[in-house]
């Protein structure tokens, strides 16, 4: 089927797949020299960098030769215009605003790269040893 270039690019499936595989622990996110920026390589063929500056999250995908294939950004907090009735219900219940898909991916990437779970366990052990 020929691509209709009049349509905008749909990054959604790639971001959703990255998020799903990250949640399954199949993507090894790494810290970088920049704060709040994390890197992952998928089979050594594509690298993905997710970064957060203020309220904006950005995902950059590069090919094997380091050329940028696409770059997409999204606010960390999902803009109100995109809320579903379920988002609205949860926001009403919890008082927390829903996080965008890139925001969610950034949170998971940070958790993997910073080894948050391991560090939480060791912190707990340290505190209990007092």
């Amino acid at each position: 089927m020929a691509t209709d270039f009049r349509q905008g690019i749909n990054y959604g499936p790639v971001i959703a797949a990255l998020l799903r595989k990250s949640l399954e622990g199949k993507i090894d996110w790494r810290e970088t020299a920049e704060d709040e920026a994390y890197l992952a390589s998928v089979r050594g063929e594509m690298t993905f960098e997710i970064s957060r500056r203020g309220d904006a999250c950005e995902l950059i995908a590069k090919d094997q030769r380091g050329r940028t294939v696409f770059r997409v950004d999204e606010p960390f907090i999902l803009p109100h215009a995109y809320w579903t009735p379920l988002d609205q219900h949860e926001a009403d219940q919890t008082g927390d605003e829903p996080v965008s898909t890139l925001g969610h991916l950034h949170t998971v990437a940070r958790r993997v790269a910073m080894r948050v779970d391991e560090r939480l366990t060791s912190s707990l052990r340290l505190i209990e040893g007092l």
Partner: protein
Amino acid sequence: MHMQWLWQNPGPMWQWAGLTATLAGAVSSLAAFVAAWMARGQAKRAYQAAVRLTRVTEITDLTAELLELEILVAHQNIRATTAKANHLRGRIARFLADAYDDLSEKEREELSLAREQLGKVPSIAAGRKQSDNKLADISIAIGAVSVSLGLVAGRRAAANREDRGSGD
């Protein structure tokens, strides 16, 4: 008695002969297949060894370049560090393409991560931070590169030992 019965009934005898020949054929086919498989494995290892011998860049060249890069950081020379980081990034990209078939998925991942981390050095150097902070950020990036290259170098050394152990 049994042989006598067989000679008196040639039909079953030919069936037995056919079955025996079929079984012998199957066994010899299996043996030929195993021999071909082993020869293929040996040929593949010999080819890989030949490719490694003629390769322009080796992983040990990259780790040596990394050591020089670390020395430049220790000398606090940001301009030379940036130039060296760009150079090493190019060499990693070339090695990755050159040795692609010989590398495992994990090794390719580590090399592409190392290349990306080195790509951060010029932007850190051109940033607005003070020199000390820039050097600290560059050290973090190079530390990550060191981890990735060290892992690949370890795996390559193990693979080379395995090749030598197999008698090729």
